[in-house]
């Protein structure tokens, strides 16, 4: 016990200044490195946002001067808004399908023991460990074989595929953190299995399902590689940006991207602050 006290007093007081200072400097190395890493992570984001205000004309490569015109007229460049709308549509539809299918699978995997559980887990894992280019190539090979016209439908089908696995693992974590006794308590209180699910299990899964849906949407909205293979002439926002990269990307693309960024950031910050405020309120009550 005394040894422990001695050691803490050594670092806490100035009885050995040299050692204390060394610990302090050492303490700062990791945060400083992390701060630099954050800069690395955020500089391209900042660059994208800044260049949405560039008075660039057609190719947004060099800083020409500040303007609000791009923001006032985000659909000013041809096809930008059409691609954006397509991406939103694909994102919403794929998210809904993938979240519904994935949630059901996740519940089954956690709550039931059945033959083929291991192979189902493998089937969920495989798409996640397959590079997008292979997924895209496989789907394209399939679509070509059965001669499906490429477009909205094939893109959604592809996006649902790569979203499902992520939904399953996300919701699975939530399901397995639920006390199985809760469903038993519901049954014990005269709730049929159907009522127990809707009155108890589902409400408690909502945070997990919402997280999974957000993840699915962001995966779908930002996907380029699989989309490129399965879209034919259908254009999503990332595809539009990639294709116009050779000719020069209009600043309106930066506007839309920045807008999404600010919107998402606002939502996340709001959720964080609300959660923080609520936990504070609970503590004081």
């Amino acid at each position, binding site marked *: 016990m005394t040894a422990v006290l001695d050691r803490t007093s050594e670092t806490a007081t100035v009885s050995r200044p040299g050692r204390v200072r060394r610990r302090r400097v050492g303490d700062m190395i990791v945060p400083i490195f992390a701060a630099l890493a954050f800069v690395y992570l955020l500089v391209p984001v900042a660059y994208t946002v800044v260049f949405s205000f560039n008075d660039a004309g057609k190719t947004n490569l060099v800083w020409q001067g500040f303007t609000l015109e791009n923001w006032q007229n985000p659909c000013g460049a041809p096809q930008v808004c059409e691609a954006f709308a397509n991406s939103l549509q694909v994102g919403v539809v794929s998210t809904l399908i993938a979240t519904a299918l994935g949630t059901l699978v996740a519940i089954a995997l956690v709550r039931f023991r059945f033959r083929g559980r291991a192979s189902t887990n493998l089937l969920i894992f495989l798409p996640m460990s397959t590079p997008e280019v292979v997924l895209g190539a496989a789907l394209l090979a399939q679509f070509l074989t059965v001669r499906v016209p490429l477009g909205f439908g094939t893109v959604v089908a592809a996006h649902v595929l790569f979203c499902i696995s992520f939904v399953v693992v996300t919701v699975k974590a939530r399901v397995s953190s639920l006390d199985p006794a809760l469903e038993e*308590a519901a*049954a014990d209180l005269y709730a049929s299995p159907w009522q127990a699910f809707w009155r108890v299990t589902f*409400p408690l899964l909502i945070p997990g399902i919402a997280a999974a849906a957000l993840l699915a949407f962001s995966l779908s909205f930002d996907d380029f590689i699989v989309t490129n293979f399965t879209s034919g002439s259908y254009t999503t926002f990332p595809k539009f940006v990639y294709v116009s990269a050779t000719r020069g990307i209009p600043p309106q693309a930066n506007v839309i991207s920045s807008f999404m960024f600010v919107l998402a950031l606002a939502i996340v910050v709001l959720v964080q602050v609300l959660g923080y405020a609520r936990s504070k309120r609970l503590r004081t009550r």
Partner: protein
Amino acid sequence: MTSTSTAPAGTADATGGAALELTGVTKAFGQFVAVDDLTLAVPSGSFFALLGPSGCGKTTTLRMVAGLEQPSAGTITLGGQDVTGTRAHQRPVNTVFQSYALFPHLTVGENVAFGLKRSRAKDVAARVADGLDLVELGHLADRKPSQLSGGQQQRVALARALVNRPALLLLDEPLGALDLKLRRQMQLELKRIQTEVGLTFVHVTHDQEEAMTMADTVAVMNHGRIEQLGSPADLYELPRTAFVANFLGQSNLVAGTVTERLTKRGLLGVDVRGTRVLVPTERAVSSDGAVLVGARPEKMRLLVGDQAPGRGDNVLGPGTVTDVSFMGVSTQYQVEIPGLGTFGVFAQNLLGGATVTVGTSVRLAWAVDFTFGLDGAQARDDGAVDLDDEP
């Protein structure tokens, strides 16, 4: 409470609950037999405890009664009605879960109302209020479970089950998560509520003291079977197996052989390594061959020097005092008798403080009437588990 007894269909009338009967119930999980051919009758309106170490099958039994597990064989009847095969939500049985299993997304009031709403009861609001008043939590109806203390959560779980006026209330180690003081308090309260509502309570616990203070009838379970069933006093004073003798309180057991039958006096003479010890015949499980002779520690007295035993006392020893623990109300001695092992003796501190010191040579004396005889084939230490190790 009785004034609001608009019980939903399927539950018993408000006074008394229903009798529970298990007949030849067996539950196997693969190779493992959790409950082995269990037959049990719980009279209506009683407070019944299933007591046993973890893994003895008591919780599995409870879950089968609740309908959360189905027996591999046997039948379960409730108020004379066969409920085997029906599922949990179809049975007029409610459970207070070990983890309480309160719904975290619902308020206390909504938790209590849950069962009433499912069974489409009338006057839900009034009954919820009554139920919360019964556990003295009426003022917390709008809180979420996470905002309550452990003891309060426990009461909500109780109110949530009781408010449905079930034919049978099951309690699965409901006090296990509470600290000692709160546990004692809740034991008294549960007993009060049971008397007040007059329902049949089946209480599962590994805490022998809890079982003894609360229940009218205790069934001691071990390895999926019932070792002994009876009132707490009967079980304590006259255990019929070494397991019960050791699990319910402590016992001093020594092996011996029946050498004579004093039929007139109703006694058996048992030879314990050369010493004759008498056992009342009706307090012995078998009347010949190898037996275990037992007596409770508080029934034994220390004889120091040439102090004489009382008339008709059994005497063992001499031995040496190896440990003295002063416990306030009493003093606990350990006495080592060569060839027979260690004995525990609890002495009331009538004269204040310990009177015998470590190293003293003593003999042990106790009344023949308190002696019991067990099957000699059983292990002396069967059931002698350290309760502190129990989860």
